[in-house]
């Protein structure tokens, strides 16, 4: 592949997978600027390393895996906190739409979860990857995915219960 083809391939990759990567990474790192940094690093690695793929599915999985490793590294070096700023989310939403409060609450609660839980929930329940694919992309065992799905659900359920009880009271 010559330089011109590589450039075209990079643009196509950004066009095809950029938005998906943005959504997955945003919920992990919780702000637009870190998300964009991660996408830039992921695609730079793609551009420099020139990995070979058997299929588009393989390529998609590679991009998610690399971006998730970068998310993990970033989170490792940042202070742990569960606070999510509403304005950081609103900044990435189109202005002309009205959003369901319940969805926003859900989104915030999910974003507040520990990386290990939200990563499996996003990939499995929202992006609809199978347990095996999720395990492959996150480089963990299928048992670990299932355990984290279970624990993540439990944690979210408790948050909902607490939220709704407080609301009723």
């Amino acid at each position, binding site marked *: 592949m010559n330089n011109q083809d590589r450039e075209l391939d990079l643009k196509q990759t950004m066009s095809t997978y950029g938005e998906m990567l943005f959504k997955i990474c945003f919920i992990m790192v919780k702000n637009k600027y870190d998300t964009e940094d991660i996408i830039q690093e992921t695609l*730079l690695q793609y551009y420099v390393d020139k990995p070979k793929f058997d299929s588009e599915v393989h390529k998609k999985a590679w991009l998610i895996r690399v971006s998730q490793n970068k998310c993990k590294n970033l989170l490792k070096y940042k202070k742990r906190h569960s606070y999510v700023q509403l304005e950081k989310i609103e900044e990435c939403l189109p202005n002309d739409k009205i959003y369901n409060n319940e969805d926003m609450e859900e*989104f915030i609660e999910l974003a507040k979860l520990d990386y290990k839980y939200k990563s499996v929930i996003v990939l499995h329940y929202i992006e609809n990857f199978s347990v095996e694919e999720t395990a492959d992309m996150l480089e963990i065992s299928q*048992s670990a995915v299932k355990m984290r799905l279970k624990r993540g659900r439990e944690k979210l359920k408790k948050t909902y219960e607490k939220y709704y009880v407080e609301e009723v009271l």
Partner: protein
Amino acid sequence: MNYWEKGKNQIYDNLEFSTESQNRIVEEILKKGSNGTDSLSELDSKRVEKMKKKEYGDIFKKVTVASLSLIATGGIIAGVVAYSNGNNSSKKIAANAVVESTEEVSSDLILKETEVEETTKMEETTEVEETTEVEKETEVEETTELKETTEVKETTEEVVEEDYEEGNVGKDFYYLDFTNTPDKNTKVKGYEFKYEKNRSNNTYSLFVRKNGGEYKKIDTIKSKFDEFAFFAHGNKLFYPSDNGIKAYDVKTSKLEYVFDNTTDASQMDGERPWVYGATNNYLYFSTTSHTQNAASTDSEAWTGVQYYSYAFNMKTKKVTFLGNREFVDYIADDYYVMAEVPKYNYEDPGHPFERPLYVVKINGNVIKDVKLLGERAYCDFFARGVRYSEDNLHKIFFEKFEKKLKNGCTDFTQSTLYTYDIDKNKVEKIATLSANKFGLNDIFIEDVTDDYCVLLDDDISYMYTFATKEFDYYD
């Protein structure tokens, strides 16, 4: 309505990655990309600088240095704690005396720990068809030169850091799971093994060297999983490869398939044989099966799980069924932890978290129950394997959830930590941890050492120190 019920969320679906940002990033990449791989480290440097500005830089550097220097001995946690104690003492949470006395063992609990008769053997294993050899390892001769095997070549890569694990000193058997430590080396009987990963083509290369000499390549393994467990027994290193299990003999440099997924696995029920141990003659496997909605791969559709365990004789290629249990982890010598599917209700239909756990002793294809650790027990903390006492590698930690909810499921708000010593066949209680007393949602022990355990709750880790009964943030 939750994600797992409707599978979508308006906010997530509408997150917008602007075309302007996309174009800017592509331009940046093209600019940086023309500088080759150096640009990656440049980006990393940029991040460090950025973090320094955010005043996290100092923490990052200290943790990194601590990680590099302590990781080989598993001391990273202790190191960070030591740092934390020395610099952040103001963060102590006054939660002394929140853990019950270790003397308060209920009679119910004592009953549960009643020893399983030493003579009990599993029914399925009584039919031993051959003389079981008790393998004794012959010492690896120090003068033995490694011969080159398939495609043996010296690595050009400089080994910057001598970061290896010694394993269980004095033991025949050594187990190393590279899942979380893919870049680490391991040392077995004077031989050091190194494992490298090539992400671009999903291959893994295995190297060996002796007495600090140059590394020689043993094999290249292609796999989409990182889950490699290497077992060293005697002169042999066993590891999963493309189509089964391979054995590499450090003395003769012979490399061979000892288990073939396509033929040998057909003697087993369940899916994906997963090796948990090896001797000179036997490999030990577990498989699982699920009752599953055929149209779905979703774990929610799994309504039940069943375990199967086997001993595989590498010489005769015969498989012996060891029972409806799953190997959880190897402890030491011939001792393993095994789990059963609970008979009570459990929350995750795909894979129970807490299970009846047994310590068993295996000799060839004969299995013997040594101890029932608990009906609702857990010992592979955070799916990373058993934790050993630093002073005694025959002593492991485990936890038991002793309460149940009205629906029969386990109540995770209370857990009791214990140790089990295989030499004394003795269980000792460390502490009972209660979520209410700590203000946590439930007790989820992420890690445990002789001195403290780490609890995870709502994105925050806490440390409970056994001696002082202090409950503290854990960084």
